[in-house]
């Protein structure tokens, strides 16, 4: 990265976790700030410029969703939550409050860094107003409302396009069922998950090389969907040789 080193704020009450996160981030060229409590985190986030927040749930002084809400009240900084498995409802709640993504504990540094890069890229794209999202062979031009697969323009129904559009705006990050249902079908349909399932199937038929093993539009069970945005341009170009992104690897 040629830009100045991104600054990450790590909010975690466990010193051992803060320590490995600090080492891992510093090895990858980040500047690290730490906070052990919610109050300290909010103080740091208001006083210093922050490019990214990593928030572990279960802080001693504050509910995780409260921290998310407080930070979101003045900042759109990318925010990634560390959570435990089998708490899908909690993840959904935090995503709805404004968290960008989550990583399930225990996790490896590579997994977290992949999520972090995606979130930073999304933030950069949002600030520059870049209208084009590329995922492997798929190109979504948000300003021209065009979707191309291997340079060939696809015909999508208005609802299919709307679904893909919302996912592309959050490319790489998970988008909850509720959010998608509300944006595409309206708020009275937020419980009608089957609409989504049927439309995602139709969309996969059009954009995936193998709709039964999707690699672009992937499911996050019990939470939502994400467009599998590769973490970097180089990775994107290597799409066809690489393993599926998001796989647990080194």
């Amino acid at each position, binding site marked *: 990265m040629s830009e100045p080193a991104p600054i990450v704020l790590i909010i975690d009450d*466990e010193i051992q976790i803060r320590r490995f996160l600090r080492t891992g981030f510093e090895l990858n060229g980040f500047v690290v700030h730490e906070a052990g409590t919610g109050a300290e985190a909010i103080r740091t986030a208001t006083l210093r410029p922050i490019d990214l927040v990593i928030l572990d749930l279960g802080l001693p002084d504050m509910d995780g969703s409260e921290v998310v809400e407080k930070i979101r009240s003045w900042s759109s900084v990318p925010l990634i939550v560390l959570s435990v498995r089998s708490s899908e409802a909690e993840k959904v709640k935090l995503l709805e409050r404004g968290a960008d993504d989550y990583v399930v504990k225990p996790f490896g540094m590579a997994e977290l860094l992949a999520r972090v890069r995606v979130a930073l890229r999304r933030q950069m794209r949002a600030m520059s107003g870049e209208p084009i999202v590329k995922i492997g062979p798929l190109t979504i031009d948000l300003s021209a409302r065009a979707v191309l697969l291997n340079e060939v323009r696809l015909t999508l129904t208005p609802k299919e396009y709307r679904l893909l559009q919302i996912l592309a705006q959050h490319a790489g990050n998970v988008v909850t069922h509720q959010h998608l249902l509300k944006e595409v079908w309206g708020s009275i349909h937020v419980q009608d998950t089957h609409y989504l399932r049927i439309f995602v199937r139709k969309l996969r038929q059009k954009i995936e090389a193998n709709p039964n093993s999707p690699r672009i539009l992937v499911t996050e069970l019990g939470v939502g969907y994400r467009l599998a945005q590769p973490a970097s341009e180089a990775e994107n170009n290597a799409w066809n040789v690489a393993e599926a992104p998001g796989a647990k690897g080194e």
Partner: protein
Amino acid sequence: MRILHQILREWRNVGLALLLVGAMTVGMIGLVREAALAHGSVLYLLPVLIAAIRWGLVAALAAAIAGGTASAFFFYPPLYSFVIKDPQEILDLTLFIFVAVVTSKLAAKLKLQFDIAQKREADMRDLYAFSRRLAVSFGVSDIHAAIEDHLTSVMQRKVVLFASTQDSSDTATHSSDTAVPERVRSEVAQVAAGRRDPANGMPVIDGDGDIWLVRAVSPKKSEFGVIAVNLGPDSQAGLDDFRLRVDTVLADATATLERLDVAHAISEARMRSETDQLREALIGSVSHELRTPLASILGAASVLMSAPALAGEKNLRALVNDVRNEAERLNDDIQNLLDATRISSDGIKPHTEWADPADIVNSAIERCRRRFGDRRLSLDVPGELPLVYVDSVLVEQALVQIFDNAAKYSPAGSRIGITARARESSIVLAVSDEGTGLSNGDKTRIWERFFRGGQHAATTSGSGLGLWIATAFVAANGGKISAKSDGIGYGTTLSIELPVAQAALAQMEGEADE
């Protein structure tokens, strides 16, 4: 109060009986004119019998006397005088009165027995309903609600039960939502604290002028709680009478409660909830205490793995890799223990939603990729599978357990087949391996907790929890798991069958397009 009420009722009955006799007289006068009927006195047996059956002995006797008198007056010569001349007719009338008295006595006795039988039946029904409700009551509050309803139905008055708490003597917890005036509450607290004579209820008048009677349900067993009965705005005079009735009902109720061993049930329910709380706390702390260090270990290992300082150190990297793999295994074991505790402590509450079976399969494969190693996956999942209404995360975890088994008990480089098939009213996800296989005895026992097949225990370590957890998770979603194997050495196929509601699906296809 009660006696007065009874006298009033008796008078009403007598009046009704006399009315009946009067009506009969009018009818008979008509009959005598039309059909020249003589000696109508026998017909008066009719109102006597009716009065005896409907209104009891006193009314029947009144009807008999009235009937006799009316006969003498209207039908025996000289007419319209109470004097009877013919000795034969005097005998007739005497006989009538005798028969009337005897039959009314018999009929009244019959009525009494009938009433008693009916009341007994109603009591039995109440009691049966009560005991049945107790049998399905799990918590202390359920039992108290049952006692409260039972007393309300027996006393025909609003009854509020306060469960006495054992530890703090001055607070009594309220078992229902009904509003109870503050003055009554403080009296309840006094009674619960044992500062009142337990055998003698204190009347309390609330702000609206209603009288409440506050009493311990049982003078001996405080765990049955304290009741407050709303007597309504009755006069003080009726209070003693009602207090007696409450005493009787409470004595009965206490006997019932003791017979049904409610005290035991209450203490057991209390203990159960304490054990549950303890277990919850234990799971919570184990989960946190064991997994937080693991998250640190795994995270630190992953950082070391990518550290430039270790880039050329093949041996050191192998060590770090071991740390990570073993920590991951430990994490899986802890997760299994937590899942198992969750299943056996409070059952599983699935969060159901419409899900695509293919998504569940893909997600499970993704999670097991490292575990599969170099085993060849062959995936056969058709694109147009019906949706299923399940907790997709639970089904995925069940599938992960099955994948884990397949990977554990099959040789490196062998094939693992994953198929999904739609049947008439279900979909079947099947996982087959080329591994150890199952003996006939194993097939039925693999679903047991902690069971491990002889061959399996010999080759690989494991807790024997995996398939038990998978079965519970699938069952929580209305599905079932089955196993097939051609014997030891011939591989195993494990299948998950999930129900599908076809009608709902056909309807859904249309809806989403609008």
